[in-house]
């Protein structure tokens, strides 16, 4: 336990000095403020409070931003130690590889959580200050907060796994960007074009829901939109998926962090310094 905490403290310090903490906090704060100010302009007619509107746009933003931040913080975790030569030293210490990973995870997840809390807190503040009905959106915001942290944990795990697989920080960075583009950007485009080509056939009814749930970023968006009953209003992939029950997307959101971390542990176990 002490070893995990010490690792976490050291990693947090490094992230603080490498400005990852500042970058994460500023990005989340700025985007949340912009979205909540923009979201509060033309409300009224829809019968939806301002905070709920902001949560819907924050959800779309988080799908991109949280995985990116998580991957940027994690890609160096093992490859960097390996390149500096500290990995062989660390592995000679009486600490298990899982403990090393957990220590890093605790630090990186704490930074992400801070960023999410700051951003969401600002968004809530703006919404509540401008609309007295905004309190109605708080449960949706809370749901978005904890699912964002879980989404972060998933991509941290994926980043550690890539870091262990590539051994070189430059290689790990490339893989991390590739993963981000693939899962967050290209995946949805591919699904959409497949749906268009399929024209309501087998793919749309059977394969598409599974494909959405299999991607942690899509499952995250789906879960938040379904839970707040906003799928009908959402465009694109989210709008095409209102048939998927909530418990399925929730399961995906809950299972992915563990799966990704198990993957990272398996990849790390194979590393010989």
């Amino acid at each position, binding site marked *: 336990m002490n070893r995990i905490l010490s690792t976490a403290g050291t990693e947090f310090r490094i992230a603080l000095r490498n400005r990852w903490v500042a970058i994460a906090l500023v990005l989340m704060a700025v985007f949340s403020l912009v979205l909540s100010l923009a979201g509060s302009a033309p409300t009224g007619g829809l019968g939806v409070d301002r905070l709920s509107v902001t949560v819907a746009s924050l959800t779309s933003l988080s799908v991109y931003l949280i995985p990116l931040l998580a991957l940027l913080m994690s890609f160096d975790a093992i490859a960097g130690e390996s390149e500096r*030569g500290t990995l062989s030293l660390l592995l000679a210490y*009486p600490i298990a590889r899982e403990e090393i990973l957990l220590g890093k995870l605790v630090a990186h997840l704490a930074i992400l959580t801070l960023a999410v809390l700051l951003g969401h807190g600002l968004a809530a503040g703006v919404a509540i200050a401008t609309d007295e009905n905004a309190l109605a959106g708080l449960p949706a915001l809370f749901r978005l907060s904890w699912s964002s942290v879980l989404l972060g944990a998933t991509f941290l795990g994926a980043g550690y796994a890539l870091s262990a697989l590539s051994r070189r920080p430059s290689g790990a960075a490339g893989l991390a960007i590739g993963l981000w583009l693939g899962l967050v950007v290209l995946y949805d485009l591919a699904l959409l074009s497949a749906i268009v080509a399929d024209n309501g056939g087998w793919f749309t009814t059977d394969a598409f829901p599974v494909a959405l749930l299999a991607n942690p970023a899509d499952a995250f968006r789906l879960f938040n939109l379904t839970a707040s009953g906003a799928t009908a209003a959402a465009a694109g992939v989210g709008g095409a998926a209102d048939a998927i029950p909530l418990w399925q997307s929730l399961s995906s959101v809950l299972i992915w962090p563990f799966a990704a971390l198990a993957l990272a542990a398996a990849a790390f176990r194979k590393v010989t310094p």
Partner: protein
Amino acid sequence: MTSTLKISALTKRFGDLAALGGVSLTVAPGERVALLGHNGAGKSTLMKIILGLIPATGGEVTICDAAPGSPAARRAVAYLPENVAFHPALTGEEQIRHYLSLRGESPSLAMGLLEKVGLGQAARRRIGTYSKGMRQRVGLAQALIGNPRLLVLDEPTSGLDPVSRREFYALLDDLAAQGASILLSSHALTEVEARTDRILILSRGRLVAEGTLSDLRRRADLPVTMHVTARNGYAPDIARALPGAILVDGALHLTCAQTEKLETLGRIAGLGDKVADLEVLPPSLEDLYSHFSQQGAQ
């Protein structure tokens, strides 16, 4: 338990390359052993196997009755890898505090350790601002944590100035006096000469020589060199009396086998007043080293 480290018939292959071929050795408590060998001889590979970082292909290694890499072995062994670069964003003190926590020791011991290796002044500065030798000392400081039974140090003095090297070996003497075993590799032959109990020479993955320095000298039986300085004008006389001597810068240089040493000295003494000065040079450590490495290569 008599030996801290026991290795028998250890082999390691990297694909086609035999990095280690049947190495056997033991290190007793309190013993300081130097591992010498050319680049690529297998020194670092041997150390990594001892630490359980890479698996051996064959043979056996036991450290304090435990297997390499087992929790018991990891607690007993301290390691200094070659070319280690600690995170530049941390200070020396933070880095050592972390390593103390990992060994279950109190982080408050960090300053004491850093002072021991001469980093007391720089402890609160970031490692990124350290010089090469200072970074190396951070590595030494972490190797002193706890009371390791065995220290495995891969080129620990690389980057250290001569005074620091002396201080470093003094630290090792203290540890050895308390019963710690030390296995270190080095390319600086003269420094291991006086500061270690035993020398192992590794050549292409094989142990080609093992013993104290005087053992090795005796076994190698390398010729002794003598420099005889003649009194004015007597050089030709002396050259005649000592066949095989050659004149270099006014002095006569000759070599003879160990067994002929006394006889040759007697002959020189017989020349009496003609000799101004005499220097006897035993084979240097470099000579010994290349003798055994070449022997191993054949």
